[in-house]
């Protein structure tokens, strides 16, 4: 038993140190990497607690997908456009610091005087082993007792997807071209996505549809359509 406690303290220590790194790092990419480290340690703690499924799900979902997307965004945004992480007025910083300290004291008091209650659930280690492991146990619970939350979560994600699709959807082809002519930027060096770093309303009007690369360092001229770029239509799209 002692060795497991030791392992736990090691993992928890690294996780907390990494979490501190997230806040303290000045470079946002370093923050993200620290967060990855923290997540991996938390996943390892789950393994110590025999929740392998949770551990793997944590790694696949959080480190494998979410932080990767965070990094993706950080790389698309130009570094000098990011706000100063450690700026702000001195008074505001002091108040923030004190509030944080108060919260920390409150949480510490709560943890030190805690009294966890409630009877242990019916999923003892033996019961979990009897159904074949903790994936099977989680599956059974999710699709019987927690059926309604699962369905509600599905709807929640559907709503989020619809919203995200509308906000991120490229404009209609003509509109998109008009924007592209004004911006002269493309993302990922392919002719489809248009990188609207500047608000369209504040840009100069298009000059009669001429493709004229304006100044600035982001001046990649793009083909009008994917078909002009190469002769192949995209997968799953018919040729217009």
């Amino acid at each position, binding site marked *: 038993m002692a060795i497991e406690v030791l392992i736990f303290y090691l993992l928890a220590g690294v996780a907390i140190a990494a979490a501190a790194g997230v806040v303290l790092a000045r470079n946002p990419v370093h923050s993200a990497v620290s967060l990855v480290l923290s997540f991996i340690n938390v996943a390892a703690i789950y393994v110590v607690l025999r929740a392998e499924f949770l551990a793997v799900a944590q790694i696949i979902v959080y480190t494998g997908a979410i932080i990767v997307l965070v990094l993706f965004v950080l790389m698309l945004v130009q570094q000098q456009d990011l706000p100063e992480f450690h700026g702000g007025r001195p008074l505001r910083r002091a108040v923030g610091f004190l509030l944080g300290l108060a919260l920390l004291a*409150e949480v510490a008091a709560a943890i030190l005087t*805690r009294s*966890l*209650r409630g009877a242990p659930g019916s999923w003892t280690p033996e019961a979990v082993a009897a159904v074949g492991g903790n994936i099977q146990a989680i599956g059974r619970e999710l699709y019987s007792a927690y059926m309604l939350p699962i369905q509600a979560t599905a709807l929640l994600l559907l709503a989020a997807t*619809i*919203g995200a699709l*509308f906000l991120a959807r490229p404009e209609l082809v003509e509109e998109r071209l008009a924007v592209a002519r004004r911006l002269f930027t493309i993302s990922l060096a392919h002719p489809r996505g248009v990188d609207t770093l500047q608000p369209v309303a504040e840009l100069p009007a298009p000059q009669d549809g001429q493709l004229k690369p304006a100044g600035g360092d982001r001046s990649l001229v793009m083909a009008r359509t994917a078909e002009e770029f190469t002769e192949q239509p995209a997968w799953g799209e018919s040729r217009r």
Partner: protein
Amino acid sequence: MPVQLVAPDWSLLVPPLVVLGTILVLLAADLVLPRERQAGLTVVALLGLAVSLVSLLAIDWTAGASTFGGMYRADSFSLFVSLVALVAGILSILVSAGYVESGIEPGGMALAEYLSLLLFSVLGTMLVGAAGDLLMIFLGIEMSSLAVYALTAFARRRLTSIEGALKYFLLGAFATAIFLYGIAWVYGLTGSIMLDDIAGALRDIVQGDAPVEASLLLALLLLAVGLGFKVAAVPFHMWTPDAYQGAPTPVSAYMSVVPKVAGFAAMARVLVQGLSPLSEQWLLLIAILAFITMVYGNVVAIAQRDVKRMLGYSSIGHTGYMLAGLAAFTSLQPGDRSVGSMLFYLFAYAFMNIGAFGVVAWLQERGQGVDLEDFQGLAARSPLAAIAMTIFMLSLMGMPPLIGFYAKYYVILALIEAGLLWLAVAIVIMSAVSAFFYLRVVAVMYFNEPAGAWQPARTPLLGAGLAVMALGNLALGLFSGPVLDLAQRWALAFA
């Protein structure tokens, strides 16, 4: 061994399922119909909500039945929350009818996505009202606010819209994290996420005069802060003015009501039903929040020239009044007016505030802006619109016999019964303060000369909606008894 699947009582879920069905119809129609032929979808959405409203009648709400292991409760409280959410949804769609297609927003707005997200938000609010555990409350709140984050940014070519949505989204996500942390603490301390079980466990814990543990206070604080963000109580209101000002006007109308209903329903469920043994602790917190919220909202609203922004601050003020209703809670007895007065206030607020934003949208469709100057001489140009706006402003101010007066009256009554005289006096004073900025709009409409170009436009649905809301303010004010009785049945649900 085969998995025992649940056999839920689907008949209790008919109203939310009708809304869900409407959403699916809208999405399918979006897939099939070309953009030009989607105008009829507004009617489809209205019909769906109306059918859902009618289907509320089919369920025996007094029985307090529950299904899915108690996670979904069909009781009098969920009935009223569903009622308010559906009515507010219908009114918001009426307000947005012409606006979405009209091209007021640069780049246009997509009707089918707009309507389906709006219905998703209504659905989430209904789920919060009917939730029997913290998980469903969380999911319902998220569904109701996630859809509104996206709706706020629907004018995606306008920077203010994006800015408002971003602030709303970031602070909302932050609040969600705080709320979830609170749920984790409650679960750790009581061993359950079912509200009734939590109340039972807490009753055992807080017996006697022993001081309440720090961990319970922390859990309470986290939950209250998280929900405070959702209802825009001061000091968690930072996102409100920008989001209200930036969002497309019908969205501002909608989000001033329905996500707020979700937030208050969650507050009632969590604090009154789940944490009622801790009421000594949270009552003072809510009372103080109510006070600073109403003072801040009403005082800052005075300085606003932008009517949408003014309504945003006034909405903060009204949050304060609603919180005051909650603060009047004494016990779970049927005679307690607190939650009932809060629910009635939400119902009344839907008619007043959506109406006010509706007139703004009406003006925008006629080529006007959203500043106070744009209301100049409205009475000369369109007496009916001016009368409607006057009714809404007076109702928001609390002028008898309009519904807004009765809403405040019941809150004050509940406060006096609970012995919170100082809060009752504060509401009266703040109503007097609010007269300043509400009446200013009325004065501008009637006493100034018209200025600026006027483009005539035909907006039948919006006009009908405004008429319904104006009449509703009068009629429901004069005959507020039945609605109030319905709201007062909340105690049966929580007992």
